[in-house]
């Protein structure tokens, strides 16, 4: 079985950013993801929202659904926070730190759509919020169990652990379930997919983009820990 650690998965280590026990690290893989998210966040920060044109039923008129200024401002702010949190999660080298970034992204995602005045979008956002709150249980308990089972939370140390105990596997799968609930991937996609159906496109895309990046990074972290 191939031993996977940080360099086999991400490429050569460019350097670390030490913040006490939390050490952010940069490899080509992480740098690419980090830069992509930062560029997208900058694009969001300078862009304006789209206006949806809906054809009216039984007449020839159109119905423009646009975003008001107050709503635009709060959405832009929350999208930028979401982008920065996603970028931070890409380069973090600490298990618990990553979990906190995921929790932050979950909260901010609800906030981005909470400002709309469309009932079915709000319904979906409410259901997503329930799911996000439920998934804080598996996320944080996964962090606690990993600390209890290995005595460390740093990915550099976790990568070097030779024997994989069943508790570590349990913790990693719990972590995966938590990330699946928070980002809304495969079986739990419906809430997040319904949340998008509202005007204000570039800000809504960060909801989607953050889920994609977080999923990739979560799989990488699980590979670092378990192999």
């Amino acid at each position, binding site marked *: 079985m191939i031993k996977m650690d940080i360099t086999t998965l991400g490429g050569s280590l460019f350097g670390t950013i*030490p*913040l*006490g*026990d*939390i*050490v952010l690290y940069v490899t080509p893989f992480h740098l690419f993801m980090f830069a992509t998210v930062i560029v997208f966040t900058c694009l969001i920060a300078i862009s304006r929202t789209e206006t949806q044109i809906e054809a009216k039923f039984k007449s020839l008129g159109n*119905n423009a*659904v646009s975003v008001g200024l*107050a*709503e635009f401002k*709060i959405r832009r*702010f*929350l999208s930028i*926070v979401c982008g920065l949190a996603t970028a931070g999660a890409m380069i973090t080298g*600490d298990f*618990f*730190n990553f979990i*906190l970034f995921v*929790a*932050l992204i979950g*909260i901010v995602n*609800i*906030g981005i759509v*909470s*400002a709309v*005045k*469309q*009932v*079915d979008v709000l*319904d*979906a956002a409410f*259901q*997503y919020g*329930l*799911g996000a709150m*439920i*998934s804080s249980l*598996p996320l944080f308990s996964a962090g606690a169990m990993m*600390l*209890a*089972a*290995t*005595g*460390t*939370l*740093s990915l550099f*140390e976790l990568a070097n652990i030779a024997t994989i*105990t*069943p*508790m570590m596997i*349990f913790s990693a*799968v*719990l972590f995966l*379930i938590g990330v699946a*609930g928070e980002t809304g991937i495969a*079986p*739990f996609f*419906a*809430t997040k*997919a319904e949340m998008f159906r509202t005007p204000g496109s570039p800000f809504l895309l960060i909801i989607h983009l953050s889920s994609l990046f977080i999923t990739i990074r979560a799989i990488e972290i699980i590979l670092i820990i378990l192999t």
Partner: protein
Amino acid sequence: MKIGEILNKLACPRRIPKIFSVVLGLFLLIGLITPIALNNDQVYPRPAPQEQMLAGDSIAPYDRGGEILKSPGITKAQYPNNSKSLGMVNSYMSPIADGVRNASPYFGTSIYSSPGGLIDEILYYTRGFDTILESTILMMSFIIASWIGINFTMRRKDDVDEVKLEEND
């Protein structure tokens, strides 16, 4: 049941929290039979419960050793190189908190909440970035809640267009 029916049921947002919690609950049952293997070599160790209480320590159970501004308390860090003054944060107490400690053996827990009392080193020094993120999560939820509170407190009658739009959907 056909696969199509199952997929259709998955596409309903209302069912997602229920399905998710059932999946989570079933998986947590597996946790009951998972062998528990704890590692005693922890990064963030704690003294045994009640140990400091029984010893009559005046700041039990939060005593982490050390002398104020002189010698560091007991704290382990994952990377001691990144935390130069490791232990000093833990051992620090403000003059007021120090006075309280010397005056009476009964106010140990209140020193923890007094200004400049015991500061948790792990929370504010070695893992300070986590604390920043935690408070950011809290702040974002306050921002969202207050924004909704201000902007969604409206008379629905005055906002005829919005209400009509919803009814048509």
